């Protein structure tokens, strides 16, 4: 009956003043230029994440000491319109080969630039990892305000 209900995906859009082919290139090949350095998996400092430019390619991070850690895979590679990445990181930012969530990014020409629409879906698959998330979101850089709001509401 209620088995069809799924949590809504995370959706984010942004407009960039460059054509789709450049936006696609910076998003994928240039991921090292914009990925937050604080979000890394390995113990060493992050050099940069790398997305292999093909369907079935790896998505991984390279650290300054040369070590590599998997982030996920490339599920679809359709430049300059679309890329689908498989995100296999738990809420604790560790790689789990059994966790498969999709991040689809669409690059659509708009005016003098490109609209970039990102959707991170299948989040219910992270459900059994939710406890771990408690630590992540309550830590520095997390988002305690919403939790507090909810806790206050729930406690009323």
């Amino acid at each position, binding site marked *: 009956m209620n088995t069809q209900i799924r949590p809504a995906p995370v959706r984010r859009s942004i407009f960039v003043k460059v054509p789709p082919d450049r936006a696609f290139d910076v998003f994928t090949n240039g991921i090292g230029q*914009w990925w937050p350095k604080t979000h890394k998996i390995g113990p060493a400092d992050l050099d940069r994440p790398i997305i292999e430019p093909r369907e079935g390619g790896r998505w991984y991070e390279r650290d300054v000491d040369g070590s590599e850690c998997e982030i996920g895979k490339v599920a679809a590679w359709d430049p300059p319109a679309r890329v689908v990445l498989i995100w296999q990181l738990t809420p604790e930012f560790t790689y789990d080969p059994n966790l498969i969530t999709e991040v689809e990014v669409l690059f659509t020409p708009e005016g003098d630039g490109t609209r970039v629409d990102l959707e991170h879906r299948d989040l219910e698959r992270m459900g059994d990892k*939710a406890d771990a*998330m408690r630590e992540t979101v309550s830590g520095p850089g997390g988002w305690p305000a919403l939790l507090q709001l909810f806790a206050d509401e729930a406690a009323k």
Partner: protein
Amino acid sequence: MANTARLISALADPTRRAVLEKLKDGPRPVGEIAQGLPVTRPAVSQHLKVLKEAGLVSDRSVGTRRIYYIDPKGLGAMRAWLDQFWGTALDSFKLAAEAEAEKFKKKDGE
């Protein structure tokens, strides 16, 4: 902030807050949740659906019944975190993409 808005709007409804309150002391089936509430059982199911989509409530099957339970720091929090993560990442991506474009423009102009 779309997901934040969804969470807040899920909590803004007084009946939904009452439904959450019913779950505060432990998992319950929809029939028990509906008891004492001034709305019909289908309405309660609808509210549970909204709460579930916002990641605030989860459910599981026990025999033929479906049991709902509060998930205060589960998916809702995780999604809020991812929402924030991607928001920051895309802002940073925009800066990188447009800085690149500036560089190319300058080169072309020379």
